[in-house]
């Protein structure tokens, strides 16, 4: 059974606004005009148990609206969704026991009391047995390394510490699905890396399904193995990270260290990105010239002391997709 099934999901919002043609004080008396905005349109996808899916798109693409519908906060205008066997907007309370939700910019902890007290209250809200709760709490506290933070109030914690506590809070009731909305927003590099490691450990250990929305491609690359990209409320891409990179760029970065002081290189489909003393950075389109031929040519032309082949960063891939769509 799929963990999440979405079919033809659509959500439109209706706003009323004053006629923009009328200005000054008359504006307040101008007739209101109804304006319809389609945030999500004909969205369909399926997510299996244990998958780690990045749900990405530019601002206003409809990511948050979709997530809200999958949690049960928002009703769709039309379409169907089943999450863990429940229709989210109908069986919200039942589904709540199966979902863990983390909003990067909004804490779910009670701000004026120690973190441990928030955990205790959440355990009661989710009707956890005392023994089961203590086991799960202690396991998560060890896993996310927050033992030293339990007696502190959230407002005294750093953003990274607070986020780890928030994630533990959302996992106390052993949810099968974890929704993460910008979980690393505002964190420094070290805190981000730590959080990503913790999430990966959790996903591999508990087979938790993770749905992540983030503008940080580092999060997506480190945590997820599948990407759903939406734009203007519609699904644009749904595939694995590797597929995404292959299909939408097909370029590799080749980094060379040579004995030659100023190496130069020309070949069809290969561009020099950076040239320095004894170094060369190439961007190669493997569709034009196969990678093995390019490397063979490099080895033949230079006395190579070091060589590495890298995928282009996901950020570049996404930028390219958006640029292609805008051009289309």
């Amino acid at each position, binding site marked *: 059974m799929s963990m999440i099934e979405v079919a033809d999901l659509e959500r439109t919002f209706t706003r009323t606004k004053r006629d923009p043609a009328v200005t000054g004080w008359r504006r307040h008396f101008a007739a209101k005009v109804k304006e319809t905005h389609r945030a999500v349109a004909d969205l369909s996808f399926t997510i299996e148990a244990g998958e780690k899916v990045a749900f990405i798109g530019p601002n206003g693409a409809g990511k948050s609206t979709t997530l809200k519908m999958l949690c049960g*906060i928002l009703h769709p205008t039309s379409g169907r969704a089943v999450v863990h066997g429940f229709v989210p907007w109908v069986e919200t309370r039942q589904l709540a026991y199966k979902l863990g939700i983390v909003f990067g910019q909004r804490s779910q902890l009670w701000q004026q009391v120690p973190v441990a*007290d928030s955990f205790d209250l959440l355990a009661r809200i*989710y009707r956890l047995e005392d023994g089961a709760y203590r086991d799960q709490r202690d396991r998560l506290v060890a896993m996310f390394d927050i033992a030293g933070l339990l007696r502190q109030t959230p407002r005294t914690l750093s953003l990274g510490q607070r986020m780890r506590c928030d994630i533990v809070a959302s996992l106390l009731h052993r949810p099968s699905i974890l929704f993460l909305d910008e979980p690393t927003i505002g964190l420094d590099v070290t805190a981000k890396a730590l959080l990503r490691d913790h999430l990966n450990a959790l996903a591999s250990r508990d087979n938790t399904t993770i749905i992540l929305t983030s503008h940080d491609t580092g999060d997506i690359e480190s945590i997820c193995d599948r990407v759903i990209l939406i734009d203007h409320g519609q699904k644009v891409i749904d595939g694995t990270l590797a597929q995404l990179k292959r299909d939408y760029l097909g370029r590799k970065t080749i980094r060379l260290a040579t004995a030659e002081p100023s190496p130069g290189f020309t070949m069809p489909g290969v561009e020099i990105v950076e040239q320095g003393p004894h170094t060369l950075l190439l961007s190669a389109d493997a569709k034009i010239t196969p990678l093995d031929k390019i490397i063979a040519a490099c080895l033949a032309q230079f006395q190579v002391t070091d060589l590495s082949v890298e995928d282009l960063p996901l950020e570049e891939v996404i930028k390219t997709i958006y640029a292609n769509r805008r051009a289309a």
Partner: protein
Amino acid sequence: MTARTLACAFRIGSRRTLAHLAAMLWVVGIFLALTLSYGRMLHALPDETLARIGYTRDQLVWYLVLTETAIMGMGFQFRETQEDIQSGRINIALLRPMPFWMLKLAEWTGQQCVFLCLLLPFSLATGFAMAGVPPLSRALAFLPPACLIALQTMLAINLMIGAASLWIGESRPVAWLYQKFNFLLGGLLWPLAFYPVWLQHVAAATPFPAIVAGIGGFGLGKTTGGAAFDFGVQLVWLTVVLTLAALIGEAVRRKISR
């Protein structure tokens, strides 16, 4: 299980007050300043006025002390709900498998119960200092449960005021009206007996006397029968207000999800 959850929320609320003890002491200071100055004003009331309404100055001072304790001890929490709505934190609360309004009320009750316990010694001391021993009777047995019921009623109204921001954007105008009604229709400084008869009838049709005058009445020497009747009225208003709070809680959920 629900009772244990609410007890846990109550405990969290009480810890919130304890975490802000210094700020609470400021409120106690304001309470003292207000009751002492208004108490002095009551002492200046002419004898003929007192004879007309049938209360002594000391009774009026005790009425003042008790109504001020009720108003200041029960807080104005509507801002918290408004902030939850405006910041979007309400979404998290709505996704929990328990009505958010129940949890909020339990938490606020814990918060205000601790504050009332803190305020009460100061309130009694002020009353003793200005008016001597209060009118003692068996009716006083109704005072603690009456305070609890008034507290619940007031907090439920605060919750609804905060929720109003979802429809009107800003709760302050409604809160302002609520404060004025508490003052005027609740009989904050003066017993309702001072009012013209028509205004007494208007007041009786609202929950405000149950919250304010219902507590202050113990300072006027309520009879046991009178206290039992007032307690019944308080219970009726609590039922009405809690039902409305539950309906508004559901309306908030519907409004956000549609």
